């Protein structure tokens, strides 16, 4: 999740779990009762639908126009092993057919990967981005980011110290609702997050999440698009009404 540390809530949490087989919004519409509050535990399986499940992240990938700096940052500063490189001729689009595609181990079988397109130019939007401070400055590039998980506060602090000792500017710790995070930028200017879980998510979280989005979608339908939505008060008011409906009380 990205949020400007200690600043406005520009971006909202993404619950990176899919542990509920049916949405609470669907449950509401079908007349089924929402789940009662249960223990705050996570289902071990990531059951999505029809028995299919995803098993976590294999890799995320980004383009880079800074080969040496990228390798130095991920391998030498972060200490992520470089574990695979593809070098291809004529496989990419006509504008940049040849490329390197290389992968750094980010734990639990996941990697962070980069494309290095020979003969291409970095887009203007990435120019000087590495000089930006370690908090979100736009709602597209910085919203698209990877958050790595560590086990506890000690590990989070150790990563912060390591990065700072190597000259990387790191944000203050941001304590969100269910995770605590630090943020920094790589040499390309990409926004990176390291986070620890503060508590497990449970059925109540999933039900509440669906209800919030149901409220927003209803308003979006009524207003004809996100451009006309805001402030958030309307979403909170609609959600309250949905909950009062659930209780059988009038607004």
């Amino acid at each position, binding site marked *: 999740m990205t949020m400007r540390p200690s600043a406005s*809530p520009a971006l909202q949490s993404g619950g990176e779990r899919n542990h509920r087989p049916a949405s609470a919004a669907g449950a509401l519409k079908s007349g089924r009762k929402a789940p009662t509050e249960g223990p705050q535990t996570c289902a071990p399986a990531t059951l999505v639908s029809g028995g299919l499940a995803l098993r976590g992240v294999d890799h995320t990938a980004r383009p880079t126009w800074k080969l040496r700096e990228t390798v130095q940052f991920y391998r030498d500063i972060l200490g992520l092993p470089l574990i695979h490189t593809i070098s291809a001729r004529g496989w990419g689009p006509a504008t940049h057919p040849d490329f390197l595609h290389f992968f750094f181990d980010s734990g639990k079988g996941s990697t962070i990967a980069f494309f290095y397109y020979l003969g291409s130019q970095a887009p203007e939007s990435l120019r000087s981005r590495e000089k930006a401070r370690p908090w979100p400055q736009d709602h597209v590039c910085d919203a698209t980011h990877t958050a790595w998980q560590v086990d506890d506060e000690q590990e989070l602090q150790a990563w912060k110290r390591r990065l700072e000792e190597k000259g990387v500017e790191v944000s203050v710790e941001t*304590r969100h609702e269910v995770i605590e995070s630090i943020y920094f930028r790589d040499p390309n200017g990409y926004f990176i997050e390291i986070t620890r879980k503060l508590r497990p998510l449970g059925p109540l979280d999933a039900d509440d999440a669906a209800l919030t989005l149901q409220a927003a979608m209803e308003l979006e339908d009524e207003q004809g698009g996100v451009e006309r939505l805001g402030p958030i008060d309307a979403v909170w008011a609609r959600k309250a009404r949905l*909950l009062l409906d659930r209780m059988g009380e009038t607004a």
Partner: protein
Amino acid sequence: MNGARIRIFVPRVPEFSCLAEAARGMPQCTVRQCPPGYELVEAQGPIEFGRKALGLKPAVWYGLFTGGLQGRITRFDRDLVRIEP
């Protein structure tokens, strides 16, 4: 209670429990269990909450009413929120 009133649904999760707890200590508020998963704070008149008094960091503070809110937010800055019917 009749007429316009403030209603705040507080999800029963640790990070928001301070809100219901603070409301329980405010004479103008009533707090009732609202199963499943929420507590409902109700008030007839304006109410205010302070971030530091709730012990909240900004990231949670700015999502304080994510559980649902009926009422007008007439002030919501880094340190204080005021809600009116």
